[in-house]
């Protein structure tokens, strides 16, 4: 089976030759090719080179578009700061007030170098992989983009104390999500993966999630021209999945390593795809034998669950992760019976 067939089997709940797996190795391609990060995060051809190196060295069944969410913030006017060991960070939000945002035109994909880089990277990857393995496009969720371009505190203030204004913000960030997801789909991505922090009850009250944020997510996801994978975004999610199970167009959920897949299945039923099992940021510090054990435990736990893909959760796998740690995942998956 090809990776694409294996992943499709997981989506449809059919049997595959082995369990599909993926690791978020967006950044790691630069480690494998030695490409300087500012170049890697600006040149689609360099990104492709890195991802082909990931494919050849590790062989995950899904590859990812650049995991550089701040580029979407920069398209609105955020100032970014380069980091030595990771993607750029938002140094300064784009707007000093919500009114400024409301007056700002939507960034155009073809006119913004960062957005064009994200989309073109997908296009090159899809062409190069030629249906051998799916490419998942990573995009900022509308509610998290609001925090990025306004700043965390102003966004919390709006959500908590001015919900009508918060909804207007979400209309703008939702429109951006629809535009970007359409562009990525047209370029060849199989699905959109979107990390969502500002809808998790550990971040905002469930009532706020229900009344203000979820309606905007429903609208944005329903309008995406392809399936969306709801990524836990950094907090455990399984206990709250009841809130999200009816969001339209959601193919599945990436869960935190601390989550319970059993709890997730109880909340969701058998249809949604579940992904997760390994914390990305832990991958650099763990020993290969511990990683193999963890993989075995997760796969044993999910043995009867055909709609499961072993995947890394949280952020990208760190740049300094020893390759043998990643190979430990690959080998443990291949050897699991």
């Amino acid at each position, binding site marked *: 089976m090809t990776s694409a067939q294996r992943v499709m089997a997981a989506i449809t709940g059919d049997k595959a030759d082995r369990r599909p797996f993926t690791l978020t190795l967006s950044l790691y391609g630069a480690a494998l090719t030695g490409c300087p990060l500012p170049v890697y995060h600006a040149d689609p051809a360099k990104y492709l080179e890195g991802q082909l190196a990931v494919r050849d060295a590790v062989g995950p069944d899904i590859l990812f578009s650049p995991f550089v969410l701040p580029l979407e913030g920069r398209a609105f006017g955020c100032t970014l*700061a380069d*980091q*030595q*060991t*990771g993607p750029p*960070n*938002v*140094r*300064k939000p784009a707007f000093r007030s919500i009114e400024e945002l409301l007056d700002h035109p939507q960034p155009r994909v073809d006119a913004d170098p960062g957005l064009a880089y994200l989309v073109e990277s997908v296009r090159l990857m899809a062409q190069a992989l030629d249906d051998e393995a799916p490419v998942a496009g990573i995009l900022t969720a509308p509610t998290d983009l609001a925090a990025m371009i306004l700043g*965390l*505190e102003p966004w*919390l203030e709006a*959500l*908590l*104390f001015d919900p009508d204004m918060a909804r207007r913000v979400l209309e703008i960030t939702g429109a951006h999500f629809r535009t970007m997801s359409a562009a990525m789909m047209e370029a060849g991505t199989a699905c959109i993966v979107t990390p969502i922090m500002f809808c998790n*009850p*550990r*971040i*905002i*009250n469930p009532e*706020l999630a229900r009344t203000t944020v979820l309606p905007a997510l429903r609208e944005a996801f329903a309008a995406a021209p392809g399936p969306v994978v709801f990524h836990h975004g*950094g907090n455990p999610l399984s206990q709250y999945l009841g809130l999200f199970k009816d969001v339209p167009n959601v193919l599945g959920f990436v869960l935190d390593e601390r989550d319970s897949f059993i709890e997730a299945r109880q909340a969701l039923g058998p249809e949604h795809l579940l992904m997760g099992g390994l*914390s990305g*940021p*832990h991958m650099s*510090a763990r020993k290969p034998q511990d990683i193999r054990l963890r993989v075995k435990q997760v796969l044993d736990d999910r043995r009867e669950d055909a709609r499961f893909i072993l995947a890394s959760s*949280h*952020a990208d796998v*760190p740049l300094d992760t020893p390759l043998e740690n990643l190979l430990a995942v690959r080998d443990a998956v291949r050897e699991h019976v």
Partner: protein
Amino acid sequence: MSEPLSGECRDLYGLILVAKRDQAVAMLLEDVERSGFTDMFSRLLEPVLNEIGENWMAERISLAQGYVAGKVAEEVLLASAARGEKPPAAGKGPVVLCCIEDDYHALGRKLVGIFLRASGWDVTDLGNDVCAPELVDKAVATGARIVGASAMMLSTAVNIHSVREELDRRGLSGRIQLAVGGAVFRLRPELVEEVGGDGTAPSALQAPALFDRLLARSLSLFPEEPA
């Protein structure tokens, strides 16, 4: 476990949880008018903040609710300071906070600052993207026994190690304690030791207790010299 809340504390707690910030502040300031700041603080604000801290730590309430608690405390402290009143425990000493080099996630650090001030610490907040020498310089200049460095992500948390190196280089480790915090330390608690931290707290509301412990440790290692 904290004591069960009184009726008026439960009212205040409820207002904070549903984000009725203005009503919560008004309730507290009316109480200050009746019974003075010190009484209001110990009878109302402190127990409610403790309760919120426990529930935040136990992940029963959200970051947004913790944020409302912080803003309520901040507004009441500012109003009281304008009247020339200080928190009952004022005079714990100076501390210096920052987001470490390359980190720009200010919210958690700001909340820590608010809750430390409410607990009587004299807080200097250096802001985002602060390098180790600047942080340690300010600690020396203010006589701080504790510095707090925050980072949200792994890629920036590792920069905190430069603070440990700077403290070691100047012979200040132990005397100046290094508190570390941010989302990634909850995910990877072993990072506290890896970056050379002396301790962390699970939420901003637990920061005052951490700083109390670190001050005690600093004083046990390097007692105050008699004036």
